[in-house]
């Protein structure tokens, strides 16, 4: 039950994008097409899970004073591994995400989870939390990128879905579009939360 709670925590209650609003620099930059959103999310989930597992295993070995450099080395190693394998086996994806993959190293989601969670709990809870946070990040940026792709290019996962004669709203796939779409979504999610909180209260 505790594991399930840890997992759900990242998906909804403490969603890195919509609730904690951390790690958004790469989230805003890559979300121009739905495929990129998913790929970036999964890459981050992989790095986050691997590093959380390792940091949880090493939590009693790493001295407190050098914990941050240790975390950074672990995260950077996994990130470079993802970078190399993506370049070798998914070159078309790498062309789009190429410059953002190395940025996972400094994605605050990874370091924040290592510092505030993985370094304090056992293997199982750290894994559940990392998977939840990673997938929470993934669904959030996939949603943002789907909306931006739909408005900005009239397509969804590369397939044309808007009617003929639809004029793409190019700003949606430019940087301002990222802020506008994300802002509206954060607002909506806060509204949903307030509503559900009220409902449970009145019952």
């Amino acid at each position, binding site marked *: 039950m505790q594991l399930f709670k840890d997992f759900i925590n990242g998906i909804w209650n403490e969603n890195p994008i919509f609730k904690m609003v951390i790690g958004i620099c790469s989230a805003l930059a890559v979300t121009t097409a739905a495929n990129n959103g998913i790929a970036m999310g999964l890459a981050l989930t992989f790095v986050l899970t691997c590093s959380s597992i390792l940091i949880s295993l090493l939590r009693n070995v790493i001295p407190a004073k050098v914990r941050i450099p240790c975390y950074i080395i672990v995260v*950077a190693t996994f990130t470079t591994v993802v970078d*190399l394998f993506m370049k070798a086996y998914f*070159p078309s994806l790498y062309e789009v995400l190429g410059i953002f993959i190395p940025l996972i190293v400094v994605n605050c989601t990874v370091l924040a989870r290592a510092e505030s969670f993985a370094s304090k709990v056992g293997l199982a809870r750290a894994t559940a939390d990392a998977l939840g946070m990673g997938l929470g990040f993934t669904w959030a940026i996939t949603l943002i990128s789907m909306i931006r792709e739909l408005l900005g290019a009239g397509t969804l996962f590369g397939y044309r879905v808007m009617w003929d004669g639809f004029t793409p709203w190019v700003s949606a796939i430019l940087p301002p579009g990222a802020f506008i779409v994300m802002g509206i979504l954060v607002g909506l999610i806060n509204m949903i939360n307030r509503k559900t909180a009220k409902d449970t209260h009145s019952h």
Partner: protein
Amino acid sequence: MNQYARMIIVLMIISIASGAVLALSYEVTNPTIQEQARQKLEQSVLTVIPGATKMEEVQKEDMMIYIGLDDQGNKKGISFKAIGSGFDGPIEIMVGYNPKEGKLLGIEILSMSETPGLGARIKEEAFTKQFKEKSAEDEFTAKEDVQVISGATISSTAVANAIRTSLDKIVKIYPVGGDF
């Protein structure tokens, strides 16, 4: 154990382990990465030189030249990279050229980061096809002998200028009408 010694040892072990993992994954992926890069290059060379099925690389002065050959080994043309500075960073163009006739065979945009919907339209065939059959003696002046994309004058001009600049160098290496 002395806490300083412990700090140093732990950090060192983690760094060594990380170095080993990185070296291993580099060894595993590097041949594939090199192969991908070569294939991508070859594909763009074959696109800009119609009729070519193989390519050969030669280095002339400071330029890499890719010669396109057909199945019989006849030379169909040469291609080279031209780099221009666009609105939002460099634009890399692969240019196919036939030195014997002094005419361009075609161009392809390899990489660019222009504005989607405006400058990024330099990638579209509607823009790139106008360079086909252009002569090495042409001016490549935007809005005169090169059609620009409306709303993307800077990107269009950058492409035209980049081709002109590299073509000047190529003409010195392979004079028009000569063999290649």
